[in-house]
């Protein structure tokens, strides 16, 4: 279970540009929930993910995972139990290293990075199998540098790499936004498959309302640092893209646009 309790986050505190993003923000995510998060730009979606992962510090509040407050634990230690895929496909892989080397790196997460051979020969077939499940033909290109792959191929690899070792949380930060519609569809289906297979607790930020409605077990809409819509279970299943669009329109009318 992941809990955000009473989170306060200011940007540029003490300056003229001071902005309060979160003021007493609360959110609880149950185990094995797949939460889709939508909301306009600047509503705090990505900031929320960054706060969970520890990429940005909070000013006040508690981040509780499995009854332990992790607010003061550095980012790299939190990543032990978190897998994250970014919007930019190159964030999840090393462009100047080969596919095999990238897979080996990901496979060793949580184990010591010592002076033994970087790639374990006996694992190569396992990597091949994983890559074959992507249906992108990557299994025959193990010694190719990842930098020469397309965005979609790299994003598929990022997804594979971030979920290769046992993790509890999967954080998806608009991970299909930079891909063409066809590839985005493939990546989204792959995501769903992995999440179901590994029973991961997942938070997915997306601008694609259709994905938000079709995938996941819970839907959250954020606005100005608050959750303004939170549907799960049957209610979520009955949601339509138009319902969310209506809510968007409602907000902009309230803002006076």
């Amino acid at each position, binding site marked *: 279970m992941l809990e955000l309790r009473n989170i306060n986050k200011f940007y540029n505190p003490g300056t003229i540009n001071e902005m309060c993003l979160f003021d007493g923000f609360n959110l609880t995510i149950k185990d094995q929930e797949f939460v889709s998060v939508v909301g306009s730009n600047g509503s705090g979606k990505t900031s929320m993910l960054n706060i969970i992962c520890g990429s940005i510090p909070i000013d006040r509040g508690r981040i509780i995972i499995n009854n332990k407050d992790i607010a003061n634990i550095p980012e790299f230690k939190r990543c032990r139990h978190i897998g994250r895929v970014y919007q930019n496909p190159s*964030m999840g892989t090393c462009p100047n290293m080969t596919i095999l080397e990238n897979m080996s790196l990901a496979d060793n997460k949580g184990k010591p990075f010592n002076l033994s051979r*970087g790639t374990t020969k006996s694992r190569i077939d396992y990597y091949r199998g994983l890559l074959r499940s992507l249906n992108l033909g990557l299994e025959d290109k193990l010694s190719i540098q990842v930098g020469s792959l397309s965005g979609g191929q790299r994003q598929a690899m990022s997804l594979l790499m971030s979920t290769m070792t046992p993790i509890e949380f999967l954080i998806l930060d608009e991970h299909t936004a930079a891909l063409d519609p066809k590839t985005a569809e493939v990546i989204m289906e792959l995501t769903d498959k992995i999440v179901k297979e590994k029973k991961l607790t997942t938070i997915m930020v997306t601008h694609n309302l259709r994905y938000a409605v079709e995938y996941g077990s819970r839907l959250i809409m954020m606005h100005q640092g608050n959750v303004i819509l939170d549907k799960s279970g049957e209610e979520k299943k009955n949601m339509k893209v138009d319902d969310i669009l209506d809510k968007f329109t409602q907000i902009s009318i309230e803002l006076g646009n």
Partner: protein
Amino acid sequence: MAEFLVFLFNFILGVLEEGFAYAIMALGVYITYKILDFPDLSVDGTFPLGGAVAVVLIIAGVNPVLTLFISFLAGALAGTIAGLIHVKLKVRDLFSGIIMMTALYSINLRIAGKSNVAIFSKDTIFENSFLEKYIPDSLKPYITVILLFIIILILKLILDFYLNTKSGYLLRAIGDNPTLVTSLAVDKGKIKIIGLALANGFVALSGAIYCQKSGFFEISMGTGTMTIGLASVIIGTNLFRKVSFIKSTTAVIIGSLLYKLCVSIAISLGMPASDLKLITAILFLGILVISSDRKRKVKSNA
């Protein structure tokens, strides 16, 4: 004609000796510049640091081979401090190198005691009773270049091996995509410090070997080290970019030789030796303009 051949032979021998000695340093610069993507200026200080440590120990009667290891450790320590300044005190990479370089100038003077120290009469790895006894006279003129070749070969193989270990993978990953290293639940700072320690160890080792080869330590010997290192790395890696069977480490060593060749040609064409650093700088500029090195890199703040 015979005279010219002798000249040419000695000329090439000189280039090989200088090139190999500096190639060790270039491997260090390769680690920071190419692998870590860290502009480490402390190199200008750690090169003479290695020299200072070596000459002082040799004068104190320490085994010349042992001085190489101690010099390496001294350089690694300096690199570690530069890394700690960058990682723990959050000083920009460029500045932490500059701070280290400046501080090391005084430290080197303290270690050496004065700005010039000669070790002409002492045993070095190139001139000692062991070599005197077992190496036939016909080989004597080439012993320096042979030893240097063996040393650089060993170091290259060690570095190649390291870069293919799990720890080495991380080192390569951090220059490529620091975010991924964090995702792997590894402290980025620690890896940077390891890289800087290793790189500056190589550089100090190079300084120690250079001093033993030339027979003296001089406080200003470090000026321009960074330039020579960068030039070697850029020549090597650009020249052999398309040739996949040549490893980058080999390319850097060849780059160092080519660079020394260019400098030596300029000197032998009649440029005064005092213009050495000017030649170094202009050659480096030329290389940069010709190669215009563009690198794939992930922005960490996307």
